[in-house]
């Protein structure tokens, strides 16, 4: 095999980028069809209510109206799962209740406005602690706590829990889940320094630039769906479930996705509306979603109310940790961030002992879900400044307290202390200390220059960043082209393209002779990893590796049949198979032609039974059209594959306005072998920029009395702009390959945000002499109140504040 890589690790022009810079890239609302009609949803104007009756009689008589879709027309999912439409009870402002199709979008909107609904208002809640209070409101009639394996139930804490805590401390009532490893009590006893804090992580919208409009029509018994989605084939099963069809009845077209950030991973309920309306009225249907509607159904990062206690040895080693996370879960059981926070604590700081308690509480706010580093990132953003407090009290360097606690490859994760495939965070921190010129830089810590206060912060980020077990599909056609079939989505991380370079690299095929098949199930797309969870680069490069090995075996096998001898006597040259003895060779195109004659496993007429059904359908599409390698990645991988990053940020705070200006950001990443340097740099920089948003800008605001959201747009939600970023974001990589990946590659997407955000929160605390806000975002008015000696405008554990 190629030892010197021609493609892996090299920069290249991403194939779809010209379409993006010329405006030719087609997103959902850019598609049209003959006889296409429009569909709009009616959404709830009330945070929590019984739906007593719906009167659509006037609406259905409106001009141009073609049909209506209600909860009775769509598949149902058991509560508290997020369904397509509210049925008898609505749980948040913006929840879809029904949809109407009309010849024009204007007529659909007019008809929606003519629907009469009789709501019976129910008590609502936007603050989890208020719901846990004895007698507090439940976000759903069925209860106030649910998530994944935690079934819907009502949890109320004791009055004494709240009385003991008072107004300033986190009450610590009965958790829904808990685990412990080691002996935390003994650890705290041994500790020289104990840090004990409450914290709040703000909720904020995903705010994808492309709203989740969907377009659908039916043809030949199949449902054609044009969707804005992060994943391609990984979403097919779920989308089919929403529509109520078999996966092989779905033709899913998702060539571009205008932003997802975790909110468009396995498809989403809203996609089914266009499909089911189209089926019902027998017309192509465009279901448009406005920015306001996107706020309601476009997901948000869950917030935390938390308590943390950490005990440190004199050298900074964390001996014990006690973490309690209450998650603001929205009204559906749609996010597992709370568990990830516990795992992150056990991973990033490797405490010798730890107790974790948690309860995910339902609220009448918009549904929440995974957002870039779900759980890990909002957690490190509030915890990292606390490490600095410990370092100050122990009188040790802020890098040193992180290095002593950071995982190496012997590190463990979770309560069962499961293994890691590799971890080089200690190396990354050591490298960052040099890269950031730390010893000089830290001298500026807390310096005052006129009205400006300088702060220097360190941040760390972690997310699992690699999986396995997916299917690779490659095809060589008689014209000599290598077709790389990829079921990876096009979120914008460019990893569908960088992973597609693995097969031609290993098979010695020129990039010019590669055709990438993607974006449309009709092209024959294998079952691949979701475009999420920092997974793609690592996972799909190993899938491609497995497929390339299978392709190599088939190439040499057929060459031996054509030219004589044994397969082992052949090797791969530049797009040809060569006899090692010299002389005899046959081109890939000729082998492909022969494969079509041979049939069977060579042409895709036969395939391994262990392939995913989605892959089997894909192979069937292309069977007989060349030499086909279809294989499941069965290469071993034991343990969690972590992506780990660390950042240094320098900020200036204006003491008269409270405004934070980010001056400089540096990052060092442990991502194993670098697959695509320019793309990696982009993930690091964008992670830092989104981290700036998390640290001091982005948030939800809810009126606590009326349950009305106030941060429904980009401006009110405080999405970062060009003016919020530093002039230069620089990075380096540790470049130590992961030993359990055939090419050593790990992912990076998510940790880059966590380390970026936590470097900023740490830097803000540093500029203010170590003052901890214990809250994200740290807004200008919080800083100003602190500097002028006024109390904060919010209570310590209040959420969804201005």
């Amino acid at each position, binding site marked *: 095999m190629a030892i010197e890589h021609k493609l892996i690790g090299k920069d290249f022009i991403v194939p779809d980028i010209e379409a993006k810079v010329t405006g030719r890239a087609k997103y959902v609302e850019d598609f049209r069809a003959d006889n296409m009609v429009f569909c709009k949803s009616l959404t709830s104007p009330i945070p929590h209510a019984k739906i007593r009756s719906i009167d659509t009689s006037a609406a259905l008589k409106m001009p141009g109206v073609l049909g209506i879709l209600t909860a009775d027309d769509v598949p149902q999912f058991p509560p508290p799962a997020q369904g397509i439409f509210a049925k008898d009870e609505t749980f948040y402002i913006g929840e879809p209740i029904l949809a109407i199709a009309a010849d024009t979008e204007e007529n659909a909107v007019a008809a929606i*406005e003519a629907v009469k609904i009789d709501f019976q208002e129910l008590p609502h809640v936007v603050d989890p602690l208020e719901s846990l209070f004895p007698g507090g409101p439940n976000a759903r009639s069925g209860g106030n706590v649910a998530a994944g394996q935690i079934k819907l139930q009502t949890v109320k804490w004791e009055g004494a829990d709240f009385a003991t805590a008072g107004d300033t401390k986190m009450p610590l009532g009965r958790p829904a889940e808990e685990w412990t490893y080691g002996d935390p009590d003994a650890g705290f006893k041994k500790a020289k320094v104990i840090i004990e804090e409450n914290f709040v992580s703000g909720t904020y919208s995903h705010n994808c*630039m492309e709203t989740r409009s969907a377009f659908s029509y039916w043809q030949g018994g199949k449902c054609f769906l044009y969707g804005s989605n992060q994943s391609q084939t990984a979403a097919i099963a779920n989308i089919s479930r929403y529509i109520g069809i078999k996966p092989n009845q779905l033709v899913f077209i998702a060539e571009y996705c*205008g932003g997802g950030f975790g909110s468009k991973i396995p498809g989403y309920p809203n996609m089914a509306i266009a499909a089911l309306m189209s089926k019902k009225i027998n017309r192509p249907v465009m279901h448009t979603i406005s920015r306001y509607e996107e706020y309601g159904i476009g997901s948000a990062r869950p917030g935390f109310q938390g308590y943390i206690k950490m005990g440190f040895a004199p050298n900074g080693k964390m001996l014990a940790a006690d973490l309690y996370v209450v998650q603001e879960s929205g009204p559906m059981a749609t996010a597992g961030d709370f568990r990830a926070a516990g795992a992150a604590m056990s991973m990033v700081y490797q405490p010798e002992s730890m107790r974790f308690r948690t309860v995910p509480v339902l609220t009448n706010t918009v549904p929440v879900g995974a957002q870039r580093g779900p759980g890990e990132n909002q957690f490190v953003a509030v915890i990292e400044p606390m490490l600095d407090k410990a370092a100050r009290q122990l009188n040790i360097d802020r890098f040193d307290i992180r290095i002593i606690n950071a995982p190496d490859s012997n590190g463990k994760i979770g309560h069962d202390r499961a293994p890691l495939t590799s971890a080089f965070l200690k190396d990354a921190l050591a490298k960052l200390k040099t890269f950031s010129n730390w010893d000089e830089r830290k001298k500026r810590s807390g310096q005052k220059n006129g009205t400006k206060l300088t702060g220097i912060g360190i941040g760390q980020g972690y997310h699992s960043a690699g999986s396995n077990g997916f299917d690779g599909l490659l095809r060589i056609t008689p014209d000599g082209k290598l077709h790389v079939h990829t079921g990876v989505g096009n979120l914008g991380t460019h990893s569908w393209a960088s992973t597609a370079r693995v097969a031609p690299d290993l098979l010695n095929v020129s990039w010019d002779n590669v055709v990438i098949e993607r974006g449309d199930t009709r092209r024959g797309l294998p079952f691949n990893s979701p475009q999420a969870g920092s997974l793609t680069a690592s996972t799909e490069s190993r899938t491609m590796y497995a497929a390339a090995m299978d392709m190599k075996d088939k190439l040499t096998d057929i060459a031996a049949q054509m030219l004589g001898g044994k397969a082992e006597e052949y090797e791969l040259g530049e797009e040809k198979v060569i006899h090692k003895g010299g002389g005899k060779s046959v081109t890939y195109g000729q082998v492909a032609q022969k494969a079509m004659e041979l049939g069977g496993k060579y042409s895709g007429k036969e395939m391994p039974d262990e392939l995913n059904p989605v892959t089997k359908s894909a192979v069937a599409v292309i069977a007989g059209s060349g030499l086909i390698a279809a294989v499941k990645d069965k290469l071993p991988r034991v343990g969690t594959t972590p992506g780990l990053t660390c950042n240094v940020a320098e900020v200036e705070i204006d003491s008269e306005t409270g405004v934070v200006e980010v001056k400089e950001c540096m990052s060092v990443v442990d991502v194993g072998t670098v697959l695509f340097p320019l793309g990696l740099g982009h993930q690091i920089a964008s992670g830092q*920029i989104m981290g700036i948003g998390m640290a001091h800008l982005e948030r939800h605001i809810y009126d606590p009395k009326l349950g009305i959201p106030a941060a429904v747009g980009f401006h009110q939600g405080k999405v970062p702009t060009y003016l919020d970023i530093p*002039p230069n974001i620089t990075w380096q990589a540790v470049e130590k390959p992961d030993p359990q990946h055939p090419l050593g590659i790990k992912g990076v997407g998510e940790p880059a945000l966590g380390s970026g955000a936590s470097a900023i929160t740490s830097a803000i605390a540093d500029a203010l002499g170590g003052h901890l806000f214990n809250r994200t975002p740290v807004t200008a008015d919080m800083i100003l109140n602190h500097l002028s000696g006024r109390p904060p405008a919010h209570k310590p554990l209040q959420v969804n504040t201005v």
Partner: protein
Amino acid sequence: MSDADSNKTEPEQQSSLRATRRSFIKGAIASGVAVSAVGYVVYERSGRRAAAGAVERLITLNVNGRDRRVDVAPHETLAHTIRYKLGLTGTKVSCNRSECGACTVMLDGITTYSCSTLTQSVRNRKVTTIEGIAGPNGGLHKVQQAMIDELGPQCGFCTSGQVVAAVALLNHNPKPTLEEARRGMSGNLCKCGAYDHYLKAVMRAAEA
């Protein structure tokens, strides 16, 4: 290599629906004839209808250097007209309220948010959309080339607006400082956080 989708905006496998859609767009572009059968709303939840009379609806717009006759309602936005009546879907609508810049076009060389500009108000002005951005030889504009070289976009949804904003900026200030570029581009949001790479592209284009 080739990417089946970027080189051909239509999937290879034609369906009658697709073919029809393409011919619709082609027809609209080639003939310049207004197509009024498209019915997106201009304002969310408006339900408002155009008052009959008052304003002449069939107007001439100069878009990307060509005069186009279009049937335009009085309350219709420029983003709506260029996307759904002229078929120029490179211009995107994201916030639909002048916050994000995804819909940025130029009016007589000055950037504007087309989602919040009434089409009737631009009758005598030159409209430039992303489809009208090109280099001197009709190929890529140096801003587009720089965005490719610096890997500017991530998801790409804001990219058309970013390119138009950058071209307008460099037309007015060919050698901006980084700070000037930052301010010049600051009307365009990117939720992916691609600002750093976009800025590098603007600075590279200024050097080209």
